[in-house]
């Protein structure tokens, strides 16, 4: 368990934001932490959809249950948060 800052590039938002998460967090939890700073503030909620995480420019999403500590994501790496069908 360790504090881990990442950069959120949230789909449809206009700015990169600092999001503190934890190495124990799953990708779904990381997505929820990022959404807290974008959805309902400047990005409209999309009921029924889920938010998936990928590296900036990456083609594949990280598995939803994968923990941040199990990935090779580096602190302050820019991650893209994308609305997907559930």
């Amino acid at each position, binding site marked *: 368990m360790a504090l881990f*800052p990442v950069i959120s590039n949230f789909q449809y938002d*206009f*700015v990169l*934001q600092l999001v503190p998460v934890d190495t124990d967090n799953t990708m779904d939890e990381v997505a929820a932490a990022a959404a807290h700073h974008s959805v309902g503030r*400047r990005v*409209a909620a999309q009921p029924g959809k889920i938010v998936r995480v990928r590296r900036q420019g990456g083609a594949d999403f990280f598995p939803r249950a994968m923990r941040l500590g199990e990935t090779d994501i580096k602190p302050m790496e820019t991650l893209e948060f994308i609305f997907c069908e559930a």
Partner: protein
Amino acid sequence: MPMLERADWYDIARDTNWTPKYVSQEALFPDVMTGAQGVPMAQWQSYDEPYKTSYPEYVRVQREKDAGAYSVKAALERSNIFASADPGWHSILKAHYGSLAVGEYAAMSGEARMVRFGQAPGMRNMATFGMLDENRHAQLQLYYPHDLVSKDRQFDWAQKAYHTNEWAAIAVRHTLDDLFMARSATETAIMLTFAFETGFTNMQFLGLAADAAETGDYTFASLVSSIQTDESRHAQIGGPALEVLIANGRKAEAQKLVDVAIARTWRLFAILTGPSMDYYTPIEHRKQSFKEFMQEWIVGQFERSLIELGLDLPWYWDKMIAEFEFQHHAYHLGLWFWRKTLWWNPAAAVTPECRAWLEEKYPGWNDTFGKCWDVITDNLLAGREDLTHPETLPVLCNMSQIPICAIPGNGWNVKDYPLDYEGRTYHFNSEIDRWVFEQDPVRYRDHMSLVDRFLAGEIQPPTLAGALAYMGLSPAEMGDDAHKYAWADAFRPDPLAKSAA
């Protein structure tokens, strides 16, 4: 006794070159301070300043200018113009004074470097007047807002901003340090006077003076025109320096200085002038959009002066022009959303009428930036102002020190432009900012952005509140919506619902 015409004695009188006997030429004029790029002093003799004036002429004209500006101020002291102006106009004044007044003082030091280390007598002579000009600009722009502090203490930031770690103040300082505080005489001539002043501030001051007159703020209009007449004179120091460098085979070096300086200057303009023109200026007073202004003055006029000097357009010219469409809209949204971190009150300026104007000037605005403002507007209508404030920091560009941002909504193109250098990852707003860093990484590598400082534990407590305290903003100074959210009422479907909300 008949007096000689100035043209008959000027060249001899200002030619103060001599042959040093006690120290070497190199010790007297080290290349690191002159920035002559190895072009020998003799070659600089061809430097021909386009604007020639003598000291008595200068003093006489400046005295008249000062008397004019101060008498307008005194005459209008008891008028109601300030109180009756739109709060958006007050925001333009606060942003302007805080970001520039002390910078003018710094520019005096930049001019002084040209006075001492300029290789051409003409440059040293013009810079002597430039130095006195900048002193005048600093004094005027500290004195005028001082009178307004009793009405509104955010005006205190004319004095205060540069002495704080407020993020916009850091962005301005970082840029001006790069353009002229940490540069040689020749670099200052090119980056400060040619790129920053001819390219941008001269136009900016012309535009501001017109806007002030339109708004009825004749005090500010006369102040700004008074400054602009100095600016248009000493901005001419750089052109002949570029000619000397180009004539002596240093075009590539000169081009790089120009390209770096324009890239840096453009960011400051986009964040200060962009929102002022397209948002803070009340819609009935807007004559041109920011994009139209940039197209006319920067693309139309400045592009021509680059070509005439024999320079090329910067490699990123088309990318920069593409940014005229969106970058300042993104900066505006960021300024407004993080408004508590500012020393002025940004005017949202997104009523239905304003949005129609934005859509007309920037087709697609509603589908992009409008999408974010839709959510913000809905939150205000629902009584959820809390959701219109941030709970974290934006990531700042390691070059501009401004949040990394671009187009939201259906044109979403936000992107980080990272760079790994000596074990540290830097983040940039665009390829242009990253390119500037790559031109001289040693120069820029050690600077910590506000976010870097936050992560390094320099900001305590490590919360948004801790960051606000670190930035020096007292609760009475923090920015808020300029019109206290009154603009959102225009979206209420039923006027009767206003009181219910």
